[in-house]
């Protein structure tokens, strides 16, 4: 039996009157590419933020890389990589400076830092943009750079919150190649999206609506669960969205 990279039990988060995530139970294995799918406001981002220790759960537990988020949120940080929805790097630093900064923050020093940065640069093909200010990069390059910064410390679990928003199709395709590469080397990747073609590239997906888990399984299984036999993910998504709006 493989180890769970992430396991949640009744994970719940309330904001004032709104319950953003309600009694979420998930088990994600090591090396999976796992998609969190759902319309805006379905609780995807809140879930990821709780798993990263950025938000405290109101109820329930989550264990990430063997560590309970409620007990030791700080210890989790060295084991996870995170790319937030909005570009979170320093736009007034160059690509190389951002990599150097995050490498340093993750505890890499001098030779080890230089080696690891050049590995990541080679892996993601960042070489031609290293001297450019991050703020001047296009969406695709920003996303690559952000992924690079999140990979420097070789995280066990990588969280990507709508990583391909504002990225052109070719760059999206390249990005997904990199994601699958990482998963093949043992990294667990958890990604939120509302692009159906992206969801289809995940090993398993969890469909969320109004903070609840609606369906779980491979993309084909989820489509079948929501729509019925022969349904597509897109149909499933539209049905869920209509349900959420009514």
């Amino acid at each position: 039996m493989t180890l769970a990279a992430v396991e949640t039990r009744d994970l719940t988060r309330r904001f004032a009157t709104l319950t953003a995530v309600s009694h979420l139970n998930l088990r994600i294995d090591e090396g999976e590419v796992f998609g969190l799918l759902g319309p805006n406001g379905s609780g995807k981002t809140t879930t990821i933020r709780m798993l990263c220790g950025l938000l405290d759960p109101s109820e329930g537990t989550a264990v990430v890389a063997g560590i309970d988020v409620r007990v030791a949120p700080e210890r989790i940080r060295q084991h996870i990589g995170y790319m937030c929805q909005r570009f979170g790097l320093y736009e007034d630093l160059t690509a190389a400076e951002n990599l150097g900064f995050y490498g340093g923050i993750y505890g890499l020093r001098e030779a080890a830092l230089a080696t690891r940065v050049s590995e990541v640069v080679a892996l993601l093909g960042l070489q031609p943009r290293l001297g450019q200010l991050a703020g001047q990069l296009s969406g695709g390059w920003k996303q690559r750079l952000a992924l690079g910064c999140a990979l420097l410390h070789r995280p066990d679990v990588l969280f990507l919150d709508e990583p391909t928003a504002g990225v052109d199709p070719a760059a999206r395709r390249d990005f997904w190649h990199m994601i699958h590469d990482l998963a093949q080397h043992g990294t667990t990747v958890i990604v939120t999206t509302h692009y159906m073609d992206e969801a289809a590239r995940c090993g398993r997906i969890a469909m969320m609506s109004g903070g609840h888990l609606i369906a779980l399984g491979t993309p084909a299984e989820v489509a079948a669960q929501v729509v019925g036999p022969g349904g597509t993910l897109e149909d499933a998504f539209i049905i869920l969205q209509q349900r959420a709006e009514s």
Partner: protein
Amino acid sequence: MIARFWPMFRKEFIQMRRDRLTLGIMIGIPVVQLLLFGFAIQTDVRNLPTVVVDESRTPQSRDLIAAFVNTGNFRIVAHVDDRSALDRAIDRGDAQAGIIVPYDYPRALARGPSATIQVIVDASDPLASQSAISAASAVAQVRNLELLRRGAGATTARVEARVRPRYNPGLRSPNYIVPGLVGVILTITMVLITAMAIVRERERGTLEQLIVTPITKTELMLGKIAPYVGVGLIQMTAVLVLGRVVFDVPLTGNVLLLYAIALIFVVASLSLGLLISTLVRTQQQAMQVSFFFVLPNILLSGFMFPRQAMPVVFQWIGALLPLTHFLKVLRGILLKGVGVDALWREVVVLLAFSVGLIVLAVRRFHKTLD
């Protein structure tokens, strides 16, 4: 715990250098302010703390001292035995004026032609010293009129008050304004720059990516303020050099000691800014809170108006501002040339502010998004 301080420090340093506008403003502000305040600012102070050396201890001398007190300008805080004890009290800032009545005062008064008393004022504070000087000569004149009226010809002796301004014998405003301005400029810029520090990262969306890393709160906070400590000391140098060259303000004391204490004060101001940054949600709010904070610093710290003249409540509020204590250090070292023996209380208070504020800022800051 401190290992990630360096990458944070380097990053902040690069960003500081790249933000040319802010850096320009920080270097420009001291110059503009100095020229404005130095040239433009050229008002009766009551209850000036006063030390008395009454060598004669006679009804006549007590009468005279009572006359000083009755003007309302002088408040006797101590009677001391000799001139050196009086000097020490003024050095430490415990008193701002001294009255010396010589042992032969009654005899000189009886025989004439004149009885001289000495009034020493701490002229590092021009408002206070001006009013002390005019009050002292008023006392002498009133005495003389009284003596004349009591019986013309019975005695011809006049009371003469010799006023000796100490530390700033020329009673020059720049000598008073420039050291104070060092503190005011440091307060404004240091608080403002770090008040933006955390909230700017929040607004730009970089905080979310940063707090998901293993960096500790202390590393983050120290890394944020460290580059600006250098900026603060450069600002101080700029004002001191300009003050020396353009306004001929003396540098009497140990400049190294001044820099050491300034370092503590800069850290306190930066930490206060960081605390503000953890309390507000937007850069706009940070700016408003900082400017709101600046006003009491200018009015209540003793920079423009002597604190002795203020109601006690305002004196207490003033004591809560790091600047109030740093001003004593600035004037003490620059004008009086005093050492750490006269300033240790201020050093202790500033250290307490630095440590207290940075601890508060670290405790207020949470590595979560809510």
